[in-house]
């Protein structure tokens, strides 16, 4: 494994988004993973519709919350193609699902894996390098006050409540850390990113991690 790896260096990570006052992080993490894997596969990096997942993933609850795994299960089972963000833009509220014909251009999920990597964060690094950015669930209660730097302490992993996109890692310094894209805009954290210490499952980062296959 390289000592540091960042999918942003390969221009396959879309810009940081802002979910605004809507509990849609679960949709942003899934769509973020799909966008990156699609670009890693050679397609131009294009932003896909988060609103489509928010409105149509019926096992989830739109702005009232959801699970990335349930969204991925829905995408895999229905073969729904996510259309470009420009065709179905984000509104920060749950709406009526828009349906598109199967011939309409879009990106579909073929499969996904979901694992608990707690105690195996090096294997998680391997998954990241092999399969692209990973959708992960964390405990982000203390992130309300976060300004920047590497989170090492006081980020319990008892209660998962937020979904994010792991885009890289850096083990070259004193404190090895994950590079994680959040969906609270670029004015939060490190221009929209948060750094979490690798090892010890800080914030529960390794508890529930999904890789996407298109």
């Amino acid at each position: 494994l390289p000592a540091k790896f960042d999918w942003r260096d390969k221009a396959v990570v879309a810009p940081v988004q802002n979910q605004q006052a809507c509990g849609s992080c679960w949709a942003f993490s899934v769509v973020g993973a799909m966008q990156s894997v699609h670009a890693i596969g050679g397609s131009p990096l294009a932003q896909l519709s988060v609103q489509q997942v928010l409105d149509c993933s019926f096992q989830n609850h739109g702005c009232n919350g959801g699970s990335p795994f349930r969204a991925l299960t829905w995408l895999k089972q229905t073969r729904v193609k996510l259309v470009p963000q420009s065709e179905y833009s984000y509104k920060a509220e749950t709406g009526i699902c828009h349906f598109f014909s199967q011939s309409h251009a879009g990106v579909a999920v073929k499969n996904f894996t979901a694992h608990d990597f707690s105690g195996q964060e090096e294997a998680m690094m391997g998954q990241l390098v092999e399969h692209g950015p990973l959708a992960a669930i964390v405990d982000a209660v203390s992130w309300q006050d976060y300004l920047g730097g590497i989170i090492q302490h006081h980020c319990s992993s008892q209660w998962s409540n937020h979904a994010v996109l792991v885009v890289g890692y850096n083990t070259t310094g004193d404190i090895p850390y994950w590079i994680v894209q959040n969906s609270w805009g670029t004015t939060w954290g490190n221009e929209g990113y948060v750094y979490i210490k690798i090892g010890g499952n800080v914030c529960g980062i390794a508890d529930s991690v999904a890789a996407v296959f298109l």
Partner: protein
Amino acid sequence: SFREHFHRMYEVNGEEFNRRHLNFQNATKRHAYLNSLSTAPQSAKYGINRFSDLSQKEFRGLYLRASADRAPLFSGLKTEG
């Protein structure tokens, strides 16, 4: 300056102002505690941001709405899908 910077419209000494002010004071206490946990230069820093006048309960209700389904422990086997 917080209200000015984050474009908050609640009036001074109104009911909402007093509630937000209390949330803000609680936030500054949290920051002191969280920042005390590590002095390493790279360690996380905590402080005033646009969420500082939200109570922790409000913050969770607005932004922390993801749920996790139990995932199997990674077995190290090569899993293509």
